[in-house]
């Protein structure tokens, strides 16, 4: 439990700092609480540490200092088996979808269960009937037909791939979904469709979502809470309505683009 005892928070980030090179922090002392419901959008310019922050949570990146409390554990201190057990509860959606290109759509969706699968079952693709049935349901839930199941992932369009990326994350049955720029590689129309799907499917299942996103309009439209970051620090944290041009100027610098 976090030391200050905020029990409602699902995720408590405490004084997290990350330096890829000593003395050059990408994240400077980040402290945030994420509730167990709703969509939180993290906005900010490129290179400001949004991706690093989100990757520190599931430890694809190791924070240099700080604590990340989730499910009664400090994720920043976990290693090996315990870390993998914790990762199973956190789904992730990526900017470039990160599907395994040469596997079929259903294999990609089912890979969300790999944390629960012994090696020999993974090798022989011995997923349980329940998992397979759920994978088919999810393929349809994200808007594709069951015919897609056996197609190879590299035959899909960008939007379709991201739909499968979302299905894979939901397949984990996660307590939290992290989305790292899920729409940045997509056209504006598909971006809206993907945001609609991601936030909708998470809301239906009561899963909170933390989204890194460049697009301020999309962030305001879909998030209940906006966190503005710049220079590795949080400079705005509040409701979308409270986000003014003044804040955006602080976050992104300049005003010509506004």
């Amino acid at each position: 439990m976090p030391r200050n005892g905020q029990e409602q928070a699902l995720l408590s980030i405490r004084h997290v700092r990350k330096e890829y090179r000593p003395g050059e922090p990408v994240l400077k002392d980040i402290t945030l609480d994420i509730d167990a419901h709703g969509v939180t959008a993290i906005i900010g310019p490129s290179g400001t540490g949004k991706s690093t922050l989100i990757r520190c949570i599931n430890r694809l990146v190791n924070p240099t200092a700080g604590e990340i409390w989730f499910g009664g554990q400090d994720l920043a201190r976990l290693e090996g088996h315990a870390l993998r057990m914790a990762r199973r509860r956190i789904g992730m959606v990526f900017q470039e979808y990160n599907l395994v290109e040469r596997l079929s759509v259903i294999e990609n969706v089912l890979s969300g269960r790999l944390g629960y699968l012994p090696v020999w079952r993974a090798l022989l693709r011995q997923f349980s009937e329940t998992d397979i049935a759920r994978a088919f349901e999810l393929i349809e839930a994200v808007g594709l037909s069951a015919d897609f199941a056996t197609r190879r992932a590299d035959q899909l369009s960008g939007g379709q791939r991201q739909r499968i990326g979302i299905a894979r994350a939901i397949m984990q049955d996660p307590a939290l979904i992290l989305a790292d720029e899920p729409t940045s590689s997509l056209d504006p129309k598909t971006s809206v469709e993907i945001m609609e799907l991601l936030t909708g499917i998470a809301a239906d299942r009561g899963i909170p979502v933390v989204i890194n996103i460049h697009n301020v309009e999309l962030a305001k439209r879909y998030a209940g809470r906006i966190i503005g970051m710049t220079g590795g620090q949080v400079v705005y944290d509040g409701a979308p309505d409270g986000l003014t041009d003044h804040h955006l100027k602080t976050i992104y610098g300049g005003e010509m683009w506004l």
Partner: protein
Amino acid sequence: MNGPALPSRPAAFPANWPVRIAYAGLLVYTLYVCSILDVSLARLISGLDHAAKLFGRMFPPNSAPDKLSLIADGMIESIQIAVLSTFLGTLLSLPLGLAAARNLVPLWLASAARMVIAVCRSFHPIIISILFVKAVGFGALAGMLALVISSMGFVSKLFAEILEEISLKQIEAIRATGASFTNVLIFAVVPQVIGRFIGLSVYQFDSNLRNSTMVGIVGGGGIGAALFTAYQRFDYDVVLTILLIIIALIILCEVASSRIRLVTQ
């Protein structure tokens, strides 16, 4: 309209003196080596005479039944050596190549694996065959073991390079699901490399088939022994029969392997 030429403009293709000097040096060295090794047109012409006699004695190829059955036994043994050494060699290359992939394992392990691979690659299969003939005695076992070693050297080196080129994004995504290292290998690494690994194994079978016809020269089994004996006894018509069969076999294998590689892509 063209303005006046700018005097300070740099040359579009500046003279590259280091390259010119390197070419000149290569030319001089080539001429020097030719003079030392007695490579000259006169020498070549006097040699052609011998070559003509050799080819004259080769025709027609010998097709006596007893010779053919001897050759068949040798060829079958060569093929068996090639199949077995490719199977064992590529199988052992899987862990060795993985251990040498610097993006997947700690650096100390990759360095150690690369040392092993370098040793495997240091010697020609014939030299390794001689070692194994001395170690385990004459016969197919020695040749087969030698080709396993050289297969491991070649396949694991290239397999490690293939592994180092894979997309880390796909691995990252599978790691994020909480999958164990082995499950990451099975679901994110293997799908990315399996096609090229099969292609590599097929190529190595080609190569092992050629080498398996040769290890017999030093006592490693297969057709090589018969070929060498035929040369020694000046039975050049038998030599030609063997050479023709080897060529036919290699061409057959080429056709088959290009088919297999097409399927796996």
